[in-house]
């Protein structure tokens, strides 16, 4: 599964994207955030306030309870500030 990070999520993790293999007990977006947060301090900082993190699966906005089952790309980013 390809994971992409944007804005300060990207900066804190120090990666634009990576390919990960997710353990079977990681079923939802929320599970994935928890699992990533334990990787190192950068991830922990990026996901310190999970409630503000926005998520897209295959380039469509989803909520944190969304199953990640068949996603090929998942992206994490702060609230949008375009326009």
């Amino acid at each position, binding site marked *: 599964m390809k994971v992409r990070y944007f804005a*300060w999520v990207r900066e804190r993790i120090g990666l634009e994207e990576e390919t990960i293999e997710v353990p079977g007990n990681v079923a939802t977006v929320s599970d994935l955030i928890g699992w990533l947060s334990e990787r190192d301090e950068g991830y922990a900082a990026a996901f310190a306030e999970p409630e503000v993190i926005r998520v897209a699966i295959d*380039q469509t*906005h989803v909520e944190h309870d969304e199953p990640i089952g068949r996603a090929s790309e998942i*992206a994490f*980013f702060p609230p949008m*500030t*375009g*326009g």
Partner: protein
Amino acid sequence: MDTKAQSGERIIPLVRVQAEDFDVTAEVARLCEGRRDIGAVVTFTGLCRDEDGRLSALELEHYPGMAEDEIGRIAREGAERWPLTGLTVIHRHGKIAPGANIVLVVAASRHRRAAFEAADFMMDFLKTRAPFWKKEHMADSGSGGWVEAKTADDDDAARWSDG
């Protein structure tokens, strides 16, 4: 038989995400050219403010692919809600200087109410749903922070849920 405008056939919005600047007159002309059924065109241009001299530039990061798709989804929603004859959205990315353009919405319709409301709606949802993030470069230090999302923008977007 119904003409295109009479039947309310849904228009296909034009969406562009680009580093280059845009020209308002050219984009208005693109929607109006050869047509005589348009009574109202509303444009919204969003520009980079220098925040009383503190800001030297804005840097706009975006999610390529999703940015176009999401703006397209918002635009199709606008085109479903209002009887538009044309709708164009151009959003720039990259480094943008104070005074320069960031975003353009052009909404054309037979009547002014639809054009005004559709452009207003588009901006509210571009602010809250389009995957762009603004980073400020400050005049003194050169660097700066990420612009925080405003709850006022969420409130603005929520205005349309009763419509």
